[in-house]
Every structure is written in C-alpha cells, then in structure tokens.
C-alpha cells in the first residue's frame, strides 16, 4: 500500500498521547532532582540527594512497596482462580446461565471508590451487618478495619469482589472462542472432566490466561482508591501501598521533589518487574 497513508492513521493518536505525556514525564524527572517542598517551593537543583535518601534512609517506602506486592499478587491469584472457576461454570449450559453471567459481571461496572464507601459501612465494626450476623452465630466482633492484619484481608476481599469480574470476562470470552475439535477428541477418548481440564482446557487457555493475569497485575499495582477510602492506609501504616505513600509525601506533606523521586523510582521498578513477570509466566505456562 501507499507509503505515506500509514502515518496519517498512526500519528494523530500517537502525537496526542506523547503530547499530553511528555511534559509530565520530563517534569517528574526534573522535579525529582530538586528540593521542592512547602518551605522552598522552587525548582532548585540538588543533584541526586533525594535518590540517596530514598535508597538509604526510607524503609517506609520499601515496606509499602512489599505490602503492595503482597496485596496485588494475592488479589490477582485469587481473582484468577475464582474467575476461572466461575467462567468454567457458566461456560456450558446451566440453568439461568445468562442471569449468572450478568451477575458475575456487575461489580466491575461499579465505581470502586463508591462501592468502597458502601463496604466501609458494611464492615463497620459495631453498626455493620457482617459483625452483627456473625454475632448472631456467636462470633466475637471482628476488627475488620482497625486490626493491622485483618485490615489487609478486608482490602483483599473488596478488591476481589471488585475485579474478579474482569478476570471472569476475559477468561469466559477466551473459553467461548476455543476450537471445538480438541474437546471432541477428548470426549471420544473418554477422558474424565478432570483430565479434560488439565490436558485440554488449561493448555488451550494458557495464552489468554497470561494476558489476563498481566493486565490485572498492571491494574492491581495501582490499587489506591480502595485503600484511600477503606482504611486511609491505616491502622498505622498497615495497608499503606506505594501509591498512597507517594500521595502522602507529595500532596499532604508537599515534599514535591521527594515525591517525584519516589514516583520515578516506583515507575522504573514497575516496568522492570512487570516485564520480568510477563516473561516468566509465558515460560511457565506455555511449556506444558
């Protein structure tokens, strides 16, 4: 085809995106080399002082990063397992199939912060229904939001509720697009449902699974809304994730320069680790 037409198609989108993003990115890098804070709100140059501070004197950032890794990996694994199970269940004919499909999709259509506000009342320790119903069964009130360990699991529950549907949708769309022949062959060989899943369904779904897991990991690494409303990072710093810590440093304490350092470091770590995860997952799952 003609040579120059292709640029007419590509360039509007590409340049709009670059145009909007170029300033923020350069600005972040420049800001990370400055000591901009509420006392000296100016773009001075202090070299890599901020980076030294981050790597030698800020355990709170690294703690929040490991917490984020724990939360996002756990939620994504749970979402994958549950999402796959749900997709398998409504893949073939069952009663009220379409009704269940709609129900399973609904949470991802709802605004996370708004649902989290509801969850907050839901898990309220004295006025919420969960502790009340459990109390009816004789269980002592559980400190859903104020116990440092349980609060993490509350965040996980809410995240799983919110985003399992996304996993479910990608996996179900994948299941529905699988070719019929391998399943016929397995049926002729008299394979049990379990063997059929292990040897036919799962390998065929591997590429789709990897795509879905990586997309979810990317989105889960940004977990912020839920934490912001549900626990505000608390109790203490028990549910504080990287994004939330950067938010505190930048927009509450106004250490803009340092927050930019955190942002940039965090972004680099994310890009590297997601690339590695993608490679490892591909190796692990495609080989079988």
């Amino acid at each position, binding site marked *: 085809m003609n040579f120059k037409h292709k*640029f007419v198609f590509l360039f509007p989108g590409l340049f709009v995106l670059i145009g909007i993003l170029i300033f923020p990115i350069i600005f972040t890098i420049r800001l990370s080399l400055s000591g901009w804070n509420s006392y000296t709100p100016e773009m001075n140059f202090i070299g890599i002082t901020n980076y030294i501070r981050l790597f030698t004197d800020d355990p709170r950032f690294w703690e929040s990063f490991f917490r984020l890794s724990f939360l996002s990996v756990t939620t994504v694994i749970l979402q994958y397992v549950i999402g796959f199970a749900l997709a398998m269940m409504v893949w073939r004919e069952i009663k009220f199939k379409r009704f269940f499909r709609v129900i399973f999709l609904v949470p991802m259509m709802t605004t996370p912060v708004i649902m989290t506000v509801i969850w907050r009342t839901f898990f309220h320790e004295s006025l919420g229904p969960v502790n009340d119903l459990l109390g009816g069964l004789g269980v002592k009130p559980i400190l859903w939001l104020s116990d440092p360990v349980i609060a993490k699991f509350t965040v996980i529950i809410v995240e799983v509720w919110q985003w399992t549907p996304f996993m479910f949708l990608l996996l179900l769309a994948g299941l529905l697009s699988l070719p019929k022949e391998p399943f016929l062959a397995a049926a002729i060989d008299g394979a049990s449902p379990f063997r059929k899943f292990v040897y036919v369904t799962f390998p065929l779904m591997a590429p789709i699974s990897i795509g879905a897991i990586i997309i979810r990991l990317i989105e889960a690494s940004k977990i912020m809304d839920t934490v912001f409303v549900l626990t505000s990072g608390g109790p203490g710093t028990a549910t504080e994730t990287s994004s939330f810590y950067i938010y505190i440093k930048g927009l509450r304490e106004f250490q803009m320069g340092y927050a930019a350092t955190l942002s940039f470091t*965090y972004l680099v770590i994310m890009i590297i680790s997601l690339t590695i995860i993608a490679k490892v997952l591909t190796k692990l799952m495609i080989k079988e």
Partner: protein
Amino acid sequence: MIKLYTFLKYFFITFWTVFVVAPFLWAVSTSFKDFQSVNSKVTYIPWLDFEPTLEGWRVLIKSPAKGGVDIVEPYFNSIFVTCTASLISIVLGTLAAYALSRFTFKAGFVRNNDITFFFISQRIMPPIVLSIPFFIFLSTIGLLDSLLGLVVVYIVLLMPIAVWIMVDFFNRVPKELDETALIDGCNPYQAFYKVVLPNSIPGLIVAGMFCIIFGWIDFFFAFILTFTEVQLLPVKVVALNSSITPWWSLSASALVSVAPLIIVAFIVERYLSKGNLSGALK
C-alpha cells in the same frame, strides 16, 4: 463423583451470587433509614426492623444551601467528561490501531509491536505519578478545575484501552477485505471508512464500553485536579464520607451513581452470548 461436583458447583455459584449482591442489598436497605435506625442497632428489613423514610433520596436533589447534596450537576459533569474522552480516545485509538495492524513501521529498533506496547504501557503509570505534574501542567495552561482539563487527562487513561482492544480486533479482520476494496478503486481512507469500519462494529462497541467503564469509575484524577468549580460524581459521593457520615444519603447517592453502568453488564453479556465478544477480547 459427578453429583458431588454438581453440588459444589451450585453451592459455589450461589455463594458468589450472594457475595456479589450483598453490598447492593445493604445499600438499598440503608438508603431508606433515618438516624435512629442506623445508629441504635443493625437493622435490615424495612417496616419489620425499621420505619423507612425517603429522606436519604430527597437530599440528593436539594441544593447544598438547604442542607442537600445536589448530585445532579456532578452527574452531568461525569457523563460529559466520560463520553467526550471516550469518543476522542476511540477515534484516535482506532485509527492508530488500524495503522499498527495493517502497515509495517520501522524506525531504528522500533517496530510495530514496540509502538503498540508504548500505547498499552501507559496503563502501567500509576495515577499518583501523573497527578502531580498534571496538576502543575493544567494550572500553567489554566485548565485546572475545568471539564476540559479532565478530558485531556482521561484521554491518557482511555486511549491505551482503545488501542489494546482494536489492534487485536483488526488483526482478526481479514486483510483481503481492504485489499479487495483497494483493487475496486477505493483509496486507503475510503477502504478503511467504507469497508473495514462497518465490519468492526462489535470491536468498536467493546472498546467503547471499556472506555466508558474506565472513565466513569476513575476517582483519583478528578479528586486531585478539581476543587469547587467542577465536581465529578465519585468525588462528590466520597466527600459525604466524612467523620459523621449520613449513611442514608451516602447509600442513595452511591446507588444512583453506579446504576447507569449496570446496564453495560447486560450489553456485555449479550455480546458474550452471541459470540461477538470472543474475537474482540483476547
């Protein structure tokens, strides 16, 4: 064995359905309560456990001066920002996706896949990383606290989604389709507009729905980049979540704000069952 499996299956489906529906039922019930029935003890069923009132719903349309919440204006703001940003993202994203699917690009070590990855990788960017520079950027060009400023920011959020879905979709539309059109005397733009686009409606619908979902549910940018002039729905609702929370109006406004997109769940399901989605999502 098979019986046990069937039992477990229905048990799990029931359990999950209850789990999905529970917060909605709680919100519906709470939205009809008054101060007494929220704060004395936990109540569930109207008339049986407590006397329902419409107060929580009434304050939604009252102006703030009269002690109301007024979510009507934020509602329209949200609709405007989401739709405008989605539309722009879809148009630009579809064009770019078509180019990436049909032509070969080479610039140094950069190939088609790298450009596609560049688009999609923008989703990796955590909102917080962008929000500080955007704050300063928008205040420099005078778009802070305005609808237009939010649209600009949302394009960054949404275009990657449009490109991601449409590249995959165009890869499945047979190349012969545009080649035939070109032989028949169309120029590349006509081939795209008259032949490829009409065959891509399912993909466009899916991409559109995803853009609308991810635009509608965003909270953080709206929270950082707007204050008083312009308020979007999620910010407005979360603002109710102060220390003394009026749970009834909170629940009512939450239900009103999540309601429109639940229709999207039905549309997605329709496409899923008709088999049109499988090609568009993978």
